[in-house]
């Protein structure tokens, strides 16, 4: 294999590995903030496969999708972290095992 090229499938497999690690983190982490970080990791993994396919088929719209995912992730992070602060005020804990009721 020439030294200056990489198969597109390697990028896709990296993206799949990052996504799987995000899923595992979402399930095994016990702190609410780290669970939220795992979601961001999954979003990033999907973004990588979007960019790879955009490069593969020379489609600029794939990159536009990534742009929108980034904007929505920024909005989601702002609201999500505000919710985390509100939960911490009400419960004084961020352990997901202890946050199991919708009502206070």
């Amino acid at each position: 294999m020439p030294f200056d090229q990489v198969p597109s499938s390697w990028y896709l497999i990296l993206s799949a590995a990052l996504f799987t690690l995000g899923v595992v983190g979402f399930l095994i982490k016990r702190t609410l903030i780290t669970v939220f970080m795992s979601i961001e990791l999954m979003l990033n993994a999907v973004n990588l496969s979007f960019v790879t396919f955009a490069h593969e088929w020379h489609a600029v719209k794939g990159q536009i999708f990534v742009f929108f995912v980034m904007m929505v992730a920024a909005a989601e992070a702002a609201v999500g972290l505000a919710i985390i602060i509100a939960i911490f005020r009400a419960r004084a804990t961020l352990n997901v095992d202890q946050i199991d009721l919708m009502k206070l």
Partner: protein
Amino acid sequence: MHLVLFIIFAGFCLAGAINLLLQSHPINSALSLIVVMSSLAVLYLLLGAEFLAIAQIIVYAGAIMVLFTFVVMLLNVGTEEKTHGSKVAKAVGFPAAAVVLAVIATVVLQAQKQLGAVILGDSLTTTQDLSRVLFRDMLLPFELTSVLILIAILGAVALARKEGHS
């Protein structure tokens, strides 16, 4: 050259993601997530997405992660408590995650013949190309996103405000 860069930064990505899972303190997880996002920006550059590479650094590694570390410090989150999950969940869960990865990898490797290779500097999407599509074909979704972000800002302020203040 491309292969070397890919291996280095893919390695950084995976190492950062695994470190995110292994660390017990949220601030360490946040810092390793910054490593993942910055290396992803380099991979975007290798794929010819120059605008997204910079946006990844500014928006993700910059703005979003600053928000995360800020919240970790504001709430003074301590080390994660170790809980002993059920043995069944461990015995089934980790192999299940490995199966998910294996299934996706198999599908990708089967389609490898139809997929091409990424060559450095092969097709560069300039900011000009991107903005032409964004502001011509995608103008309405773009404007809707700005409304969404405005609502998110207001929602964040309303949620994080202390009760009792009007």
